[in-house]
């Protein structure tokens, strides 16, 4: 195993170990990720508008299509 592979492995193990954090702590970590997501969002939206398939179907939240107020 190369040093690079070992690094990836350590990274993966660290990432997986975070599942054992308390739920509120994980929620706080997600809150900290938000500015990064929001920074990327305009770029993603622009790609979608231009029809790029690279933007695929990713967007935040897992809800089905929202119910609009009528």
């Amino acid at each position, binding site marked *: 195993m190369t040093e690079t592979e070992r690094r990836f492995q350590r990274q993966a193990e660290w990432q997986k170990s975070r599942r054992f954090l308390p739920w509120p702590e994980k929620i*706080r*970590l*997600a809150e900290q990720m938000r500015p990064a*997501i929001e920074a990327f969002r305009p770029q993603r939206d622009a790609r979608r508008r231009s029809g790029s398939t690279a933007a695929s179907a990713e967007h935040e939240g897992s*809800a089905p299509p929202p*119910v609009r107020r009528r």
Partner: protein
Amino acid sequence: MSPPRDLRNIAGVRDVALLLNDMRASGVVSDYALFGAAAQMRYTEPVATLDADVLVAVPAPDRLDVLGPIYAFCRARGYDEEGESVRVGAWPVQFVPVFSSLTLDALHAAETADFEGVPFRVVGAPHLAVIALSVGRAKDFARVLALLESGAVTREAIGRLAGAHGLSEAWDRFTRRFLDDRD
């Protein structure tokens, strides 16, 4: 009385739980349960998400403005609408009325978790996985895989629940695509 604006700005998921519990106690919703990425994080590593998705059962599901009373309740507590969500501090909360037998079942089977001392109704792992399966985007498939990998749910449990809600074919496709060649 509305909370002061500076407090609203730092409010987090605990405040979402308090708001939803009040909403249920006052009868604006018959029941609620958090689902989506925020609920997934009970079981898996943290994931990126911008909003909190909440399944709700309402006393009058046939009214034209089905979410109207929910928005009015939030507004009266100082939480304003923002697009199709209600902003509670850092979290846009998206209310989704139950829309299928699966989501109704998910609501009935929801667990009461503890979030920093506040009871919080949350959809359990099997229903989270099958709802994700039914939505079927790439990120939803990733959610199913993450829940499986965390050990929060088994393939058999997902298969049973998927079958009970007419999603056997979707589950078979998922297993062929993502699981069969990994064993």
